């Protein structure tokens, strides 16, 4: 897989799904081998129960603030793309993760892959997302109307990622 077929971006600004799909196709030079393109988009939902049980907050959720470890984030995302590309013989793969303050309803993350067949494309997308959630150095802070709290890691995410090594 040529290195240009992997694209990773950590950015404050939003992204356009159509433009990203166009860029995905262009990244493999209209490679006629791509028979399946799958994508996952994560959004900020209006979820007031985002905090751990028992942790109080004040008012409605307004936004998420996302912090990251700049030197490490892109390394981890690129490594995940490389791992998925090797495992499912992907032809092209791109990941975008936003940082900073993201209001409710906006996109946070994009995983998009091109493969020969749909099973590989679906599986690779899920693999990258599951590993991103437990290994990429991003941290979410929930911004409520009157206060803000760091979001705790979910045990269910850890259980989900461990299923890949069973």
């Amino acid at each position: 897989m040529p290195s240009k077929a992997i694209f990773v971006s950590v950015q404050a600004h939003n992204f356009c799904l159509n433009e990203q799909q166009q860029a995905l196709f262009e990244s493999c030079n209209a490679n006629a081998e791509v028979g399946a393109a799958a994508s996952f988009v994560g959004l900020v939902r209006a979820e007031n129960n985002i905090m751990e049980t028992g942790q109080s907050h004040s008012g409605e959720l307004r936004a998420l603030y996302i912090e990251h470890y700049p030197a490490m984030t892109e390394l981890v995302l690129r490594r995940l793309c490389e791992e998925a590309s090797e495992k499912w013989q992907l032809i092209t793969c791109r990941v975008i993760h936003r940082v900073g303050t993201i209001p409710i309803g906006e996109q946070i993350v994009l995983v998009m892959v091109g493969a020969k067949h749909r099973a590989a494309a679906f599986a690779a997308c899920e693999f990258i997302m599951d590993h991103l959630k437990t290994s990429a150095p991003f941290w979410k802070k929930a911004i409520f109307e009157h206060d803000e709290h760091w979001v705790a890691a979910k045990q269910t995410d850890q259980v989900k990622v461990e299923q890949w090594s069973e």
Partner: protein
Amino acid sequence: MLSVKYFASLREQLGCNSERVEFVAGETLAQLAGRLASLHTGSPSDLQHPTTRCAVNQQVVELTVVPFDGDEIAFFPPVTGG
């Protein structure tokens, strides 16, 4: 010297993004976390909490690892991206 970075809740608890500390030969990351906590006694933190993660030169490692002089060390809570 070691370059030490803190992220998210840990950064806020310590009131510190990064600092440079003396390198101590043979010191493990767990021992380093203890030394850093004692440098910040006025700011109780999760530095020595069992869930706190550590990376050396952008690679997540166990706290039993002994860093080298000049390494970049990062301490942070479990990640929550995506």
